[in-house]
């Protein structure tokens, strides 16, 4: 296996980058588990659980790798369950509450559309370990993007109420879109080395897909408000702490438990 950059500074950046990738998937995976048994139809229940499982699988791979490179004996479980809110690196979009079905679909559509472009880029990462994870995950994400786009269209072009809820769902999330494309100084050397994807470059394709799907859904095109940011440096919305309290309760209570 080819080695990642050997410079300590680059290594720290790589670990942080892997945590960003892993935390995005982990937190959205956790959110989707909240739907279990509560979805509008049995079939949707299974689809949401399926997507959640895919995401948690991705998180396991990214966080295990981050822990391995860090070399301090932390694995994916340790990183998932024994970090506090300020140490999480996920984007703000994924930690937002589920809301109603339309809101969940809006979040999934925006995230999966972005994640698909990101992972397609990462399959060509100069770090073969990242490329390998991305190659596995990109097939899953393509399905997530298709399914959620499909539902945006169905709800947007559905009844008067479903349309209204779809618009409201999307409205809630526009402010978190900018962060997805916010190029960060930490990632710059990794982009330079061909390890990370230049996220700013993904914006055009993302906007094109969103426009196409919204057009088909007969929904108005959004005006993006000024984005809120901070997730990548641990400055989260008030929602993440509550999510972690639920997610981490058992391992925190019994830190030495094996399961």
């Amino acid at each position, binding site marked *: 296996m080819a080695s990642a950059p050997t410079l300590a500074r680059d290594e720290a950046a790589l670990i942080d980058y892997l945590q960003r990738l892993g935390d995005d998937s982990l937190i959205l995976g956790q959110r989707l588990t909240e739907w279990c048994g509560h979805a509008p*139809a*049995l*079939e*949707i229940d*299974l*689809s949401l659980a*399926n997507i959640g499982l895919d995401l948690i699988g991705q998180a396991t791979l990214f966080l295990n790798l981050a822990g391995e490179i860090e070399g301090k004996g932390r694995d994916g479980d340790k990183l998932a369950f024994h970090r506090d809110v300020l140490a999480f690196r996920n984007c703000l979009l994924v930690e937002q509450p589920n809301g109603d079905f339309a809101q969940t679909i809006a979040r999934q559509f925006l995230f999966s559309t972005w994640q698909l472009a990101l992972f397609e880029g990462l399959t060509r990462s100069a770090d073969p370990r990242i490329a390998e994870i991305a190659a596995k995950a990109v097939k899953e994400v393509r399905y997530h993007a*298709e*399914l959620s786009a*499909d539902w945006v269209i*169905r709800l947007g072009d559905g009844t008067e109420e479903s349309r209204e809820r779809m618009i409201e769902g999307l409205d809630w999330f526009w402010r978190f879109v900018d962060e997805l494309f916010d190029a960060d100084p930490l990632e710059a050397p990794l982009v330079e080395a061909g390890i990370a994807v230049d996220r700013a470059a993904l914006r055009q394709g993302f906007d094109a897909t969103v426009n196409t799907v919204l057009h088909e859904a007969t929904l108005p095109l959004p005006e993006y408000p000024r984005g809120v940011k901070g997730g990548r440096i641990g400055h989260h919305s008030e929602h993440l702490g509550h999510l972690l309290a639920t997610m981490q309760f058992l391992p925190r209570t019994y830190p030495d438990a094996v399961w």
Partner: protein
Amino acid sequence: MNNDWPLWEVFIRSRGGLSHRHVGSVHAPDGELAVRHARDVYTRRLEGVSLWVVKSSDIVASDPAAAGPLFEPAETKVYRHPTFYDIPDVVTHI
């Protein structure tokens, strides 16, 4: 579950299988979503499979009450079955 979500019968060709087999049903608003949901419910991501969905109302079934006239006459006609030949071992799927 109202009329917006009719029942669809699901048929799957498993990898290396020879024909589509009925595996169950799903509720979905249309065929496209029926395929997506059938995929999540019945294939668990096993790649290389083929899925068919068909609206249950489009299937015409034989009448159980007519089972006698429909099927029983064949019972006494063993000569219709190719059971009097030796099949070489290399020939499978017969």
